[in-house]
């Protein structure tokens, strides 16, 4: 059967994924919905830019992220009406943190939320959305080597934050490590 509008259909199908990625980016459901809407608009206006044979969701994530970066940049240059600089708790300089989220998500989700922006987004793309390193590198516009070093750092931080330490006895010595203790590894 010939699908009359596969692009639109797929866009709708990926809305939950786009929303999840956007929520993680800006840590606010309201902002995320606006972001996803803007991304869909841009995607629909640029359908010819999608390369067949590549992952549609990766393409969409890239649009979402670029719009978000634009948004942050504009906010930074737009002056003090949002006062983001004073909100020290918002690493991502995002408008409003959805407080209720903090209570409904589990500790792993919270730990992911608390990661630095660049580490959080890469965990989302690779671990949660199953993009390959190469695809993630394309979304983030960084070399694949940077994807790997950032992703490894992110996961070690996450593991430390939630106490993942598989295969090893949880001794006091292990617990005493901190994330800056790079010397332990090598």
């Amino acid at each position, binding site marked *: 059967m010939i699908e009359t509008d596969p692009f639109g259909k797929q866009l709708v199908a990926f809305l939950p*994924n786009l929303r999840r990625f956007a929520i993680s980016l800006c840590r606010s459901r309201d902002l995320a919905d606006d972001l996803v809407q803007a991304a869909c608009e841009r995607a629909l206006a640029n359908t010819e830019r999608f390369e067949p044979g590549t992952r549609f969701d990766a393409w969409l994530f890239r649009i979402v992220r670029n719009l978000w970066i634009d948004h942050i940049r504009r906010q930074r240059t737009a002056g003090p009406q949002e006062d983001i600089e004073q909100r020290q708790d918002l690493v991502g300089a995002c408008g409003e943190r959805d407080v209720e989220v903090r209570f409904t998500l589990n500790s792993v989700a919270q730990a992911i939320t608390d990661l630095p922006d660049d580490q959080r987004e890469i965990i989302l793309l690779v671990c949660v959305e199953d993009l390959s390193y190469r695809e993630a590198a394309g979304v983030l516009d960084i070399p694949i080597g940077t994807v790997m070093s950032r992703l490894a750092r992110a996961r070690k931080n996450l593991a430390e934050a939630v106490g993942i330490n598989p295969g090893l006895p*949880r001794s006091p010595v292990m617990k005493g490590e901190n994330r800056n203790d790079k010397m332990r590894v090598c």
Partner: protein
Amino acid sequence: MIRCEFADETLMAFADGELDDATAAAIEKAMQSDIASRVALFLETRVQAKEALGPVLDEPVPDRLSQSVQRMIDEARRRSVPSDASERAHVVAFRARDNRAMPRPQASWIMPLAASLVAVVFGCGGYFFGFASQNQPHGLEVAGQDSPLSEALGQVASGEEAVLAGSTDRIRAVATFRDGAGSLCREFEIDSANRSTVISVACHSNHGWAVNFAVVAPARDGGYAPASSSEALDSYLAATGAHEPLSREDEAAALRSLGQ
């Protein structure tokens, strides 16, 4: 002691199935408990991250958003000419929305992973036996062909539970299936009275039953509980080319034939 031959990036790529074969083979060769646990960290963080954010995917998309996107789609469709539409029909080879499966894992990471969990399994009652050799990927041999576990594996029908002889531990047979090589395998769980649940797969060969996969899901008091148990199992089953579970009748017949 921590070994330093492999960078975190390399071990992570191994866990994610993104490593070239040669390096992957080198890691397998060098795989020892310390490296296995480092790899396991990356396996575990991936699974836990995915699991933690899974619920967000199940949230209904707000009407306001879905309606406005649908409106934009409709408008775009009106604007587009028919020939354009046929061109766009190429855009169909997407993955399913909720693709929960891990990417195909490195062909044989699962054995090293199992190795990293051996210590935990040892603590669980002595059904399992050490490796025949580090290099022989035959899994853990079940201690003795007439051991309680061997006996149970040959008798308990899937869906049923039994108490392992000589203990208070319970075995729950989950399914029987053939792996990619045609060996008869059984997925089962063992609950010990005061410990955790071991989720395991054992396959039968000429030498009897061997445990090829085992993860422990400990109680959730303080420490972390590996959310990866079932996903690790899924990955293992996918990696070994496991077939669909046998029907009750086929299972009974297959188990009978083992005893002969």
